[in-house]
């Protein structure tokens, strides 16, 4: 059957095809097979690392944010040393990266990007979204952050400073969003449910009305 014979709509997801693998896919397979053949790493180690990554999702970061909102001492430790505070919370770091947690305030809005590749706080958020790895976001986030934010529906007033943190080497970033008004009575669990991946990247703010409207 021709891949376009069937009626369902492909607009919401990438088409699944059996097309030949691309250049980088072939290179990855070749390098992986060589490393295994030379006994530098084992297939079990590769599978284990995939499982490690699969166990990390934005829900972890959301729990960290909610704890910081309800516990000022934890918040202070998180801002002083993001990695140590996350480890204390039970989130292990399986690599040598450090974590700087960037607090959004009435005066400062933080946004994170990796202009060189796809550095991302994977231990706390899991794998990055595709747009985060795409060239338009990487190039434009440091050149016209206000326009990029506006495209995400985020209007930042002129008197609020925008800080774009570009991860290049050993540091990863996590944005600590502002706690929305009207959540004073919320439990930590209810607060965590409000915190989205995009808010922890800094492309959106958390807005109770918008969340309720979904």
């Amino acid at each position, binding site marked *: 059957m021709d891949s376009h014979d069937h009626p369902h709509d492909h607009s919401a997801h990438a088409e699944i095809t059996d097309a030949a693998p691309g250049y980088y896919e072939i290179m990855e397979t070749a390098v992986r097979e060589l490393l295994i053949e030379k006994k530098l790493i084992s297939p079990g180690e590769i599978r284990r690392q995939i499982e490690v990554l699969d166990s990390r999702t934005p829900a972890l970061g959301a729990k960290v944010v909610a704890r910081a909102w309800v516990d000022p001492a934890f918040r202070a430790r998180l801002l002083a040393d993001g990695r140590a505070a996350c480890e204390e919370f039970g989130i292990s770091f399986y690599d040598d990266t450090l974590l700087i947690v960037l607090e959004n305030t009435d005066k400062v809005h933080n946004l994170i990007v990796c202009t060189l590749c796809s550095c991302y706080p994977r231990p706390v958020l899991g794998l990055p979204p595709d747009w985060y790895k795409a060239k338009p976001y990487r190039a434009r986030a440091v050149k016209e952050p*206000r*326009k990029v934010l506006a495209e995400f529906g985020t209007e930042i007033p002129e008197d*609020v400073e*925008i800080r774009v943190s570009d991860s*290049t*080497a050993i540091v990863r970033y996590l944005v600590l969003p502002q706690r929305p008004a009207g959540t004073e009575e919320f439990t930590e669990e209810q607060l965590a449910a409000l915190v989205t991946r995009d808010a922890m990247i800094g492309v959106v703010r958390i807005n109770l009305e918008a969340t309720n409207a979904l």
Partner: protein
Amino acid sequence: MIPLSTNSTLGAGPAWQITKALGEEPLFEAGDSVKVLVRYPVGHYRVPHFIRGHKGSVEMVITRAAVNNEEEGFGRNAGSKGYYYRVAIPLTELWPDYVGAPQDGLRIEIFETWLERI
């Protein structure tokens, strides 16, 4: 023994003269004005082109000495460590036609081999 430096004393007893190894102490501190060096080595380097040659200021020292991962990437330099700095660069410094607020800025970590004091 002739002390080579006098930058540390321990305890209340006789002054212990501690000589730090090269690279053991950060070269820069928060508030220092720096310029990102301009060079174009071939290979995988961690300083994006758009910041090379631009001026900024050190916001903080990343206080864990780290291997120079550019050298490490080529299998060199094992055991030799230095410091990364979180450097602030105004977006108006990077892009003369920047549209936004003048206080908007970039923060980026740069290894000390790429920075010069200004």
